[in-house]
């Protein structure tokens, strides 16, 4: 008690919370007495002492409903909150039970000295806290399956209980918490401050500073009513002793009395095999992603969801109760049918060649593997033979192993596409390290978010990437692509350079290769359709991507390949292709010129050319600069692919004229499934000509490519994709795809992953389906037509409206260059608004003239409430073609309700 003020030793009876706290139903409040032995530390009393707890418990309510409970969730709050934190879970679980869903008993305790439980006046260290909880559950005579649910320091206590009650334990659930403090990393700064001499007692007990600081961590801020509810049990210093006690119990050094118990719990957690759920708020100054990573390492089977934007008070920031009940429902369903297979197991694993196989096969070949037209070293072009690439990959792989990179470690690659990236990528794959790849096009903020989310153990990058990593505090051991002067290396916290690794790995001794179902990569989505998501692929699934490209486009050993589209470019060596990186700023595809393409083609006698849509535009624009020899070079191209977003037929026609022997293709895919359908220019023309009158329209993306399958989950009248997956033509719905090369799952986004597999996971044995979030239909020829994105579907009083078809028809109006369809008003009664760019660009935003408005209305059968003219439609920077119609709708709603005429 020495470090806390005298007020902390004041004893007081337990009581019920005051009435009227928002969201807290008094009927769930109970006082429970239990005998607990208090020993060790200052709480050394020989005989058991009877203490009184305040708890929230829906057990009596469930009994009144006459329902049988399927299990108990034991919720333990942290410091300085109380059982109020769990109020929505208690209420929602009870409401669910009342409406016929499985009945979960929720018990949320106020730990002793906290909330409205008894003030013992003693310091209760971690071992005592764990014993306290056991004493309480003994008194409650819990017998059924029990799942623990803890937050903050309550997470540790709940896991202590979990480790001690294997006979009752059915699962563990956690909100932001930690069970281990790495020796290598300091404890979080806010806690260091709170623990400082002279600060502890003042900050935690004498004043409500610690409490107030915690309550200020909510995103968005808590209402004053909710804040007052959290303050209710801690109004005076005498009520706050427990807060100080908890902070004093944080094991700051090896001598701390609670450290042993913490280690015992941490070790016990690593041995747990029960289902686990972690709901995490990344904006937490205390329990940052570092601790999540530790927990995931201890329980790799856990379902994890990071709620982007949520923080320490995740229970207030997001609807954690629904998420938890959904998870509980899934567990309930899973145990009643068949045991859940291991996370990585999904049917038979096909026998595909490992990604590095060609590097082994061609280890002695002097043939060209890679060409970099403008390498970062300056002298170009840089030509790398298979022999050299193969050796470098083995050396780097061996060096990485010796530098401590293990199988399953995540390695973030912040390297521009080119020879270095290719070598490092294949080296990581070979040793089973998981590569984390996020496109620099995400911008620094998006990239930081992605890297923090994936929490790599190692970062390999060039100077710009490493500087960002240093400045923004990205995690992981740092490895540089070039050797820095010692001072720079120290400043950037760089432990190794690639050259060091090559030296280290000179003996080319390699660890065992990973298995096909081991995780190979986390690829981040472009972020054009929401915050970037990490997409997890296994080795076999990546091999399947290569296989699909090979079988669809005939790319194989010796094929010359211009790699202007990063995701496919990296697969060059896996395909055995001779690939060339053209002269361009990789993060800005529109810097690629026609001449640069022609030179790249000439460098490897390319027959296949991959470009991103933005690059296509610029290549066409710069075509007049092509020389006669350039044209000759381009004649060798037989396949041209534009991937990433649809390209218009006129643009495709324009680029086709530069490559008279090439078949232009536009594949349809996404980070979660890189090649799903394909269509050629000729097929686009045919499809457009044969589209039946009155069809929903859209962009035709052709027929399923390679082994992919495409189904439609029909939209209902509310615009929800609830239909049974079907290939019936003419039905508009969410597009769902399956192939050996679709993603395994989303990284640390359990809810998102669950939604992406909703009601299709079981379709076909061993088949992995992915809901794309795109809307479209199949036609009678089996071709897929894209009508927009799911969030862009409008629900009007007359039915569903998908945007792309009406936009195409509006764009047939001569005066209109580009159109976007947005919606205003409540879903179900939305009005359709056309937002248009005119051929003669408007100088300011305004209503269309009556003539233009009636031309727009005449062009489409969809009723249009208003036509707004804008100088420029906002588009996604990376693709320069994807329009964020949700944002546009919000903007239009402002103007059409009488708001200011701002730019979108």
């Amino acid at each position: 008690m020495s470090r806390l003020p005298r007020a902390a030793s004041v004893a007081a009876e337990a009581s019920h919370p005051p009435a009227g706290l928002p969201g807290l139903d008094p009927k769930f409040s109970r006082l429970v007495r239990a005998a607990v032995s208090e020993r060790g530390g200052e709480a050394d009393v020989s005989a058991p002492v009877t203490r009184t707890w305040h708890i929230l418990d829906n057990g009596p309510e469930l009994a009144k409903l006459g329902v049988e409970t399927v299990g108990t969730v034991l919720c333990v709050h942290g410091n300085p909150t109380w059982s109020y934190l769990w109020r929505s879970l208690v209420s929602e679980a009870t409401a669910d039970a009342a409406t016929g869903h499985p009945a979960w008993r929720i018990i949320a305790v106020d730990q002793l000295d906290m909330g409205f439980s008894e003030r013992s006046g003693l310091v209760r260290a971690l071992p005592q806290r764990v014993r306290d909880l056991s004493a309480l559950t003994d008194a409650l005579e819990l017998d059924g399956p029990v799942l623990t649910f803890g937050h903050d320091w309550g997470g540790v206590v709940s896991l202590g209980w979990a480790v001690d009650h294997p006979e009752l334990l059915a699962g563990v659930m956690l909100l932001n918490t930690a069970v281990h403090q790495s020796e290598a990393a300091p404890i979080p700064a806010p806690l260091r401050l709170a623990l400082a001499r002279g600060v502890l007692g003042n900050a935690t007990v004498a004043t409500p500073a610690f409490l107030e600081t915690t309550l200020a961590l909510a995103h968005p801020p808590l209402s004053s009513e909710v804040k007052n509810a959290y303050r209710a049990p801690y109004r005076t210093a005498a009520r706050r002793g427990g807060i100080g006690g908890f902070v004093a119990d944080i094991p700051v050094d090896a001598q701390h009395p609670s450290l042993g118990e913490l280690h015992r719990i941490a070790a016990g957690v690593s041995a747990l095999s029960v289902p686990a759920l972690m709901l995490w708020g990344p904006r937490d100054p205390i329990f940052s992603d570092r601790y999540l990573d530790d927990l995931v390492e201890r329980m790799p089977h856990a379902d994890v969801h990071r709620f982007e934007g949520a923080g320490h008070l995740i229970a207030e920031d997001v609807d954690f109760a629904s998420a938890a009940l959904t998870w509980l429902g899934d567990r309930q369903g899973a145990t009643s049918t068949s045991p859940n297979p291991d996370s990585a197991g999904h049917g038979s694993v096909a026998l595909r060649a490992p990604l590095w196989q060609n590097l082994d096969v061609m280890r002695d070949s002097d043939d060209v593997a890679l060409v970099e037209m403008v390498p970062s070293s300056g002298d170009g072009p840089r030509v790398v033979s298979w022999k050299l690439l193969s050796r470098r990959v083995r050396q780097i792989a061996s060096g990485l192993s010796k530098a401590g990179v293990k199988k399953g470690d995540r390695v973030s690659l912040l390297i521009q596409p080119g020879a270095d990236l290719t070598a490092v990528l294949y080296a990581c794959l070979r040793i089973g390290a998981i590569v984390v790849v996020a496109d620099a096009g995400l911008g620094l903020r998006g990239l930081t978010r992605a890297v923090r989310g994936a929490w790599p153990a190692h970062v390999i990058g060039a100077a710009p990437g490493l500087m960002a990593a240093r400045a923004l505090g990205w995690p992981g051991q740092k490895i540089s692509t070039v050797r820095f002067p010692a001072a720079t290396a120290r400043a950037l916290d760089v432990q190794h350079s690639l050259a060091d690794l090559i030296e280290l790995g000179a003996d080319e001794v390699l660890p065992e290769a990973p298995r096909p179902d081991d995780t190979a990569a986390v690829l981040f989505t472009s972020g054009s359709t929401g915050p970037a998501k990490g997409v997890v692929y296994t080795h076999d699934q990546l091999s399947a991507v290569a296989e699909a490209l090979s079988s669809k486009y005939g790319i194989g050993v010796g094929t010359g390949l211009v790699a202007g589209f990063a995701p496919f470019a990296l697969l060059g060596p896996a395909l055995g292709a001779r690939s060339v990186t053209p002269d361009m700023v990789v993060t800005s595809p529109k810097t690629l010129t026609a001449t640069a393409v022609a030179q790249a083609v000439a460098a490897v006698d390319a027959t296949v050319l991959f470009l991103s849509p933005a690059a296509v535009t610029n290549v066409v624009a710069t075509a007049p600069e092509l020389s006669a020899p350039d044209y000759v070079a381009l004649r060798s191209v037989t396949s041209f692919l534009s991937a990433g977003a649809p390209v218009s037929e006129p643009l495709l026609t324009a680029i086709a004229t530069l490559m008279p022997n090439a078949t232009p293709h536009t594949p349809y895919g996404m980070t979660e499934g890189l090649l799903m359908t394909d269509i050629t220019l000729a097929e686009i023309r045919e499809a457009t000509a044969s589209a039946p009158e009155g069809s929903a329209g859209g962009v035709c993306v052709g027929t399923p490519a390679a082994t992919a399958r495409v189904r439609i989950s029909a939209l209902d009248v509310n615009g929800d994709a609830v239909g049974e997956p079907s290939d019936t033509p003419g039905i508009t719905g969410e597009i769902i795809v399956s192939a050996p090369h679709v993603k395994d799952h989303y990284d640390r986004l359990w809810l998102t992953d669950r939604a992406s597999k909703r009601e299709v996971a079981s379709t076909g044995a061993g088949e992995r389906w992915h809901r794309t979030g795109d809307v479209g239909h199949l036609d009678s020829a089996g071709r897929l037509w894209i009508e927009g994105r799911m969030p862009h579907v409008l629900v009007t009083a007359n039915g569903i409206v998908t945007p792309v078809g009406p936009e195409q028809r509006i764009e047939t109006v001569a005066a209109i260059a580009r159109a976007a369809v947005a919606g205003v008003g409540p879903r179900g009664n939305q009005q359709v608004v056309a937002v248009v760019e005119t051929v003669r660009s408007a100088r300011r935003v305004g209503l269309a003239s009556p003539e233009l408005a009636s031309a727009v209305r005449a062009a489409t059968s969809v009723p249009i409430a208003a036509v707004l003219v804008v100088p420029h439609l906002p588009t996604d920077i990376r693709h320069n073609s994807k329009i964020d119609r949700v944002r546009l709708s919000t903007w239009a709603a402002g103007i059409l309700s009488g708001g200011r005429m701002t730019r979108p």
Partner: protein
Amino acid sequence: MRVLVTGASGLLGRAVATEIAGQGHDVRTFQRRPSGLGGVVPRLSDELGSVTNADDVARAVDGVDAIVHLAAKVSLAGDPADFDRVNVDGTRSLLAAARSAGVARLVLVSSPSVAHSGSSIVGDDAGPADPEQARGDYARTKATAELLALAADSPALHVVAVRPHLVWGPGDTQLVARVVQRARDGRLPLLGHGAALIDSIYIDNAASGIAAALARVDEVHGNSYVLTNGEPRPVAELLAGMCAAAGVKAPGWRVPAALARAAGSVIESVWRIAPGSDEPPMTRFLAEQLSTAHWFDQRRTRADLRWTPSVTLDEGFERLAASYRAE
């Protein structure tokens, strides 16, 4: 069925009386001046009198099975006591007379302004009438009248309220004629940028909607329904459509919405002291009406009344143009 239609001297009243008579009912109209329909429309006769006179009202309701009550003081300015006398007292007296005469059905023609507090209405359904929140004497007294009428709903007397929004069409002296006249005089400004989405209803649709409410009153009594064309348009487009139909130039000058609202308040209070021959050019109510969105959810209306508008806005504008050409 014998149906009494009050207030059949106005555009909407005449259209409703004609519509109901056309459906085969015997119609008695009741207003101070001849409707102009008596002897022209079959099965229709005029009864002259005022809703403010109890004897007139008793005479009017005698022997009818149903009432469609449109008679009201519709104006943007005037003595508040006049509004109360006609709209509130008149409705109260009609309800009393209907009860004592054993009339079984009553359709009250109300206005969406009874539930409009001045903020935007974006796709909402009919809210409850609220005299406290309503803007201006017209809306306030119509709100009170609607509450009175719905309170009188009972097994013996089925009452339903319908609220047509911004009725317009050929022969309209309330809205179209004023818009056109002011545009012709160059006195019609656009408030703000004129993009606020506004619902309106073409006269024939309003008449058929009210007739539908009468036909369905036994099933839907006790409720209020907003009636619109279900085709919201930016207010500038709507005004331009009317002007184009009349062959006059659409308003080209703008007044900031906030300024118009403030100016409206001033003019409104001055007008009260020194009433002129015309309505005030701008009232606060009108400024709000013309610068904020108000469009509605018609799904419940259409489903409950089993009614859909048969004339689109574009067809309506064509008919309006034809009527101006015929002048």
